[in-house]
């Protein structure tokens, strides 16, 4: 295997004012692959994603290593970090209703990523933005560029978000529940667009989700997080062979189309699982 794009060892994160770590000793690597992170609410998935981009100003982040290619992210200054964000690593946020600036035109907002990282004219950046909007399958991108976020649908908003975050051609993209705010009818469409772009461009993708089925279909590998730790790492196709009781519990709690209509299992949580892993 070639050397990973991201290499994280023993990552700890504590929010300012909190009495315990929100993330406690997480380790993983990411190659040019699609890595899923699943786990229940509050298990620390988003915290890991945001820490990778150093977006948690109030939190204390420590790790043996948090390396992006051969850059040690934790030893970069904020100024150096600005060159990484958006350009080398970016993140797709959850809900376009909130993650797009409500009073700026869509085209402007997309082009801003390009303008920020490349020396070029506004016009050039605008053309790049239009080409990228085409790539996320937006019909009539010139018109959409002139619209405001409240004038476009959620599915289209999330495609705009994808365009914005892939425009500067990053190597790593973190997608934090990219479809959970969307109508079920457009989820698959948006995921397929993201998936094909990520594959074509050889981007390393971290897909954060609650949804085991989604991760099973769109990822190569899956990390299962529980209470700030990774309890198990599996190839997506081996999810059913999971060993850890927490993962098995998660699987049992998933509804299945065409499955038996028994009541869904309720998740079992045990304090001893916190201790046994990542030692």
């Amino acid at each position, binding site marked *: 295997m070639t050397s990973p794009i991201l290499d994280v060892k023993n990552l700890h994160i504590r929010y300012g004012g909190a009495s315990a770590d929100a993330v406690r000793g997480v380790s993983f690597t990411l190659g040019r692959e699609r890595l899923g992170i699943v786990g229940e609410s509050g298990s620390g998935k988003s915290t890991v994603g945001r820490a990778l*981009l150093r*977006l948690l100003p109030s939190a204390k982040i420590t790790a043996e290593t948090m390396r992006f290619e051969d850059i040690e992210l934790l030893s970069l200054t*904020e*100024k150096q970090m*600005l*060159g*990484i*964000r*958006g*350009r080398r690593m*970016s*993140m797709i*946020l*959850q*809900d376009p209703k*909130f*993650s*797009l*600036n*409500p*009073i*700026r035109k869509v085209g402007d907002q997309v082009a*801003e*990523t390009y303008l*920020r*990282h490349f020396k070029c004219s506004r016009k050039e950046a605008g053309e790049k933005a239009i080409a990228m909007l085409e790539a996320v399958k937006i019909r009539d991108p010139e018109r959409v560029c002139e619209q*405001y976020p*409240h*004038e476009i649908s959620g599915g289209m908003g999330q495609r705009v*978000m994808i365009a*914005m*975050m892939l425009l*500067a051609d990053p190597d790593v993209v973190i997608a934090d529940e990219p479809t959970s705010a969307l109508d079920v009818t457009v989820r698959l469409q948006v995921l397929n667009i993201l998936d094909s772009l990520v594959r074509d461009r050889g981007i390393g993708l971290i897909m954060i989700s609650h949804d085991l089925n989604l991760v099973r279909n769109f990822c190569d590998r899956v990390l299962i997080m529980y209470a700030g730790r990774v309890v198990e790492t599996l190839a997506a196709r081996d999810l059913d062979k999971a060993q850890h009781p927490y993962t098995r519990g998660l699987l049992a709690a998933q509804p299945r189309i065409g499955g038996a209509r028994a009541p869904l299992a309720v998740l079992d949580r045990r304090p001893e699982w916190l201790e046994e892993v990542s030692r």
Partner: protein
Amino acid sequence: MSKRRLSLQGATGQIGTILVTLLGLLILTFIIGRMMPADPVRAIVGEDATRETYEQVFRSLGLDRPLWEQFFYYLGDVLTGDFGTSIRTGQPVIQDILHVMPATIELATFAILIGAGLGVPMGVIAAVNKDRWPDHVVRVLSLFGHSMPIFWTGMIALIVLYAKLDLVGGSGRMDQFYIGLVPETTGFLLIDSLLAGEMDVFWSAVNHLILPASLLGYSSSAYITRMTRSFMLDQLGQEYITTARVKGLSKHQTIWRHAFVNIRVQLVTIVALAYGSLLEGAVLIETVFAWPGFGQYLTSNLIIGDMNAVMTCVLIVGVIFIALNLLSDVLYRLFDPRTR
């Protein structure tokens, strides 16, 4: 097409609202006029007038009519631009007000420039550094400005900065020496002196303006700071700020290009409101600095119960606030795409 109709409907609705508000305002001023403890007839005829003269004037003012009829007379007068004569000055009220208003506008305009110039940056700095030392410093500064007794501070400042140090001009709009030197064209001394080419008068006026305007500005900056801080905090907590940072924008760019741009309409609105209260309420400063403005005019008339003058002043204050509200509505429509 349908969008245009909608905005047309909005405009008609707005005009309707304004008309109703104006009517309400007129009713209010009318009631204030009738409830004033002064006797307008006595004020005209004097203490020693005979009963007959009194009754005659009483009738000629229409005071023997039912109230609603009186109100319609009043309405008719206002609509034809007749605001009556001031008992105190013997001049048409409107002429008096046109004479005093420029002094107040000059003062209030400088004050609001200072107030917003201080308050907006301080509010942004406080929000960006929430709960760190710059925030605390700003809080103390604006608390001080807010609770400063302006009458007292004004006097101390006059004693120290004018009488002792002679850094600024004293009371009045210019040095005694220059009074009457430039013809009153617009009423704005700064403009009139420039028009007349009298630079000495101009600088004297600036010198006299600077202290009261700074004091007023500082005290109104407290409110502007507080509001700016809370508007900014609100925006900085939004998810689109995270998006901007993920794109690689610096803190500075995120604050000014995203958060600040998004609060400009709210800012203009509260600055306009602060300006409105400066236009109406610089009474204390005008008294301390012997500034011949609207605030002084209103108080002197209130004290002697000059009904026509007081009613017109109240009406003007009301109209100023209606106009400012209208301005903020228009701004929202222009700058916030969600309201279109």
